[in-house]
């Protein structure tokens, strides 16, 4: 009998919980007749900046209500929401291969009539254009902020020893020798996390190879063996200046070591600065462009779009979405974001850049930038792992041959698309 009572109570409790939950779930609709614009952005670390922007927007707009969500693992969430046809109005994503496939699937709205685009730096618009598998009519994203990759250095250490920022490859190598001669490790690597191999790789590749090298290869005009040989060779030349076993440390470990002053420089992007500062909050970090060429004027800053906004095709209220975009592009909003995160604004204007970009400022002002080449590599090819293997085996020819062979294997669909396009035009 006692057992029966217990079961009865459990059933009642479950029923009570179910009703309670359905009640709370129903209370979130906005009945005031405002247009609700939903924005999902993929950088949860910037949640504070976006909450401030959301609050300001809603305080100044009576007819539109902006809802910004910054979920964890937003890309998975976005993709599942697309599957169940419940897309938000605006998405904030990076300029990477996901963006390319969203355009390819006709999911994004052409926003070429949006006025704010006029203020965006041309090189970032070019980067977005280059991300399309085949050239499409129209504009599909507003670049918002970018990050920059090159070499981070310990400014205090450089001042103490009187070291200068190198501008050519020879200067860079002799600087590394000089630092090593003083008993300090010049560079640090965290190649245990394979993706970190792409940081120096990209930063050098933009200086050596053309920005649209992947498209050239897809068209069959050149091969990676030809274009990437110098990059691969210079990559190997870096190794002696790093820790004895660069594959023993992961990204976090390398950031920690650099923060603790174990090395003078670290080949990574500006995105690593918050992680480094969390270990050593007083550190004075600056960065410079990877001096990979023999002449300074050939060097190019490696900068990619970190966050851009796209309006979805399903968005019902285009004017309201544009109003949100204009608000996001206001100087105050961008500055709000820059104060919160270390980033390079994509909009023309006089913004206060974070101090760790001092050494790159010239390139940013002159608009001398090119995108990360790995944004064009298909994820399933895992180029990062291939580079790691190459750095262990040190066989340039084998690496480049495999690169070319795998490229054709993993890009068959895209190459066919490019071929069709070329045949038509």
């Amino acid at each position, binding site marked *: 009998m006692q*057992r*029966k009572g217990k079961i009865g109570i*459990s059933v009642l409790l*479950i029923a009570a*919980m*179910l009703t309670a*939950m359905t009640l709370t*779930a129903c209370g*979130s609709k906005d009945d005031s007749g405002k247009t609700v614009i939903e924005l999902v952005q993929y*950088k*949860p*670390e910037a949640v504070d900046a976006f909450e401030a922007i959301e609050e300001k927007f809603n305080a100044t707009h009576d007819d539109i209500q902006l809802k910004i*969500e910054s*979920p*964890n*693992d937003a890309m*998975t*969430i976005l993709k*599942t*929401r697309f*599957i*169940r*046809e*419940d897309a938000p109005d605006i998405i904030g994503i990076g300029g990477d291969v996901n963006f390319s496939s969203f355009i390819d699937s006709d999911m994004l709205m052409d926003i070429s009539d949006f006025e704010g685009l006029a203020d965006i730096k041309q090189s970032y618009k070019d980067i977005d254009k280059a991300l399309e598998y085949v050239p499409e009519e129209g504009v599909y994203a507003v670049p918002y902020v970018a990050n920059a990759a090159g070499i981070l250095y310990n400014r205090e250490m450089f001042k103490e020893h009187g070291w200068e920022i190198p501008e050519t490859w020879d200067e860079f190598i002799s600087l590394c020798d000089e630092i090593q001669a003083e008993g300090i490790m010049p560079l640090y690597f965290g190649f245990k996390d394979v993706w970190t191999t792409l940081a120096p790789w990209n930063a050098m590749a933009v200086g050596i190879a053309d920005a649209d090298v992947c498209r050239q290869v897809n068209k069959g005009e050149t091969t990676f063996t030809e274009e990437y040989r110098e990059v691969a060779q210079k990559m190997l030349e870096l190794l002696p200046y790093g820790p004895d076993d660069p594959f023993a*440390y992961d990204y*976090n*470990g390398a950031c*920690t*070591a650099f923060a*603790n002053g*174990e090395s003078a420089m670290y080949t990574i*992007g500006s*995105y*690593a600065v*918050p*992680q480094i500062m*969390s*270990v*050593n*909050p007083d550190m004075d970090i600056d960065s410079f462009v990877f001096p990979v060429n023999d002449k300074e004027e050939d060097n190019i800053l490696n900068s990619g779009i970190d966050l851009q906004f796209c309006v979805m095709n399903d968005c019902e209220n285009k004017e309201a979405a544009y109003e949100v975009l204009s608000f996001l592009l206001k100087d105050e909003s961008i500055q709000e974001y820059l104060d919160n995160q270390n980033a390079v604004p994509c909009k023309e204007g006089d913004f206060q850049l974070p101090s760790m970009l001092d050494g790159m400022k010239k390139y940013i002002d002159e608009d001398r930038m090119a995108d990360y080449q790995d944004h064009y590599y298909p994820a399933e090819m895992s180029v990062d792992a291939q580079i790691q293997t190459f750095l262990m085996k040190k066989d340039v020819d084998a690496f480049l041959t495999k690169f070319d062979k795998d490229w054709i294997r993993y890009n068959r669909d895209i190459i066919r698309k490019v071929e069709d396009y070329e045949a038509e035009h």
Partner: protein
Amino acid sequence: MKTKVKERVNWPITILLIVGLITVAFPLYMTIVIAFKQPSEMTNSIAGILSLPKSWSIANFAEAMRVTDFWRSLGNSFIITILTVVVSIVIHSLAGYAIGRNKAKSKFYSFVYLYIVSGMFVPFAILMMPLVKQTAMIGLANWVGVIVLYVVFYMPMNVLLYSGYLVNIPMALEEAAYVDGATTWQTYWKIIFPIMKPMHATVAVLTALGTWNDVMTPLVIMSGSGMTTLPLAQMTFQTQFGTNYNLAFASYLLALLPILIFYLVCQKQILNGVVNGAVK
């Protein structure tokens, strides 16, 4: 003079146990130490990694609880786990009883048994996308849908366990109940259900552990419904370019406690149950 009886030590076993202890205790030590350290105390040197934190402040735990919205996420995890376990025990034990007692004499039941158990071999990854779409279509893209999915996913395993355990329960008990005038339903609830207690504990532990720690199902099914479970909330410590191990480990320790307590309680039940159910 008394001679001390020399205790004999089984050295091979002792060494094995010590090694086992180290492999369990060392990661736990690291977790606890890192959870109390500040990010600035992190180093790459062995001595630095093993050292104790400078101060034993609970600031990390407080911050981790704030960031993950701990009590709400914990509550959500609790609701989903408890409901899944309760529903699983009731439905799966019933199914296990019906199948286990009949599969020897009925082809239909042995087919049903094989059909359900073969579900174990279907990985979640290939079901994910259709499930996302279907749950959205029938309005189950929320925590209720997650529970329904869990109950289905754990069914093959649990039915296998229950019907396997029934082999150890003598038919004589049910026959005796039948002679005393009990219906099948009464026999089940009054005789079989209580006797299967050790298996209930096993099923509860397996199901609860799996449900409590799962990230993928809530992530793809509940995304956008505004409800997070603890593992989902903990993903916030790892962003694309940074991981805060100190907060993350503090949060993992907090998330570990409820399920650890649950396991300790149920483990006792499993051990007790071994002696139950014998016919005298």
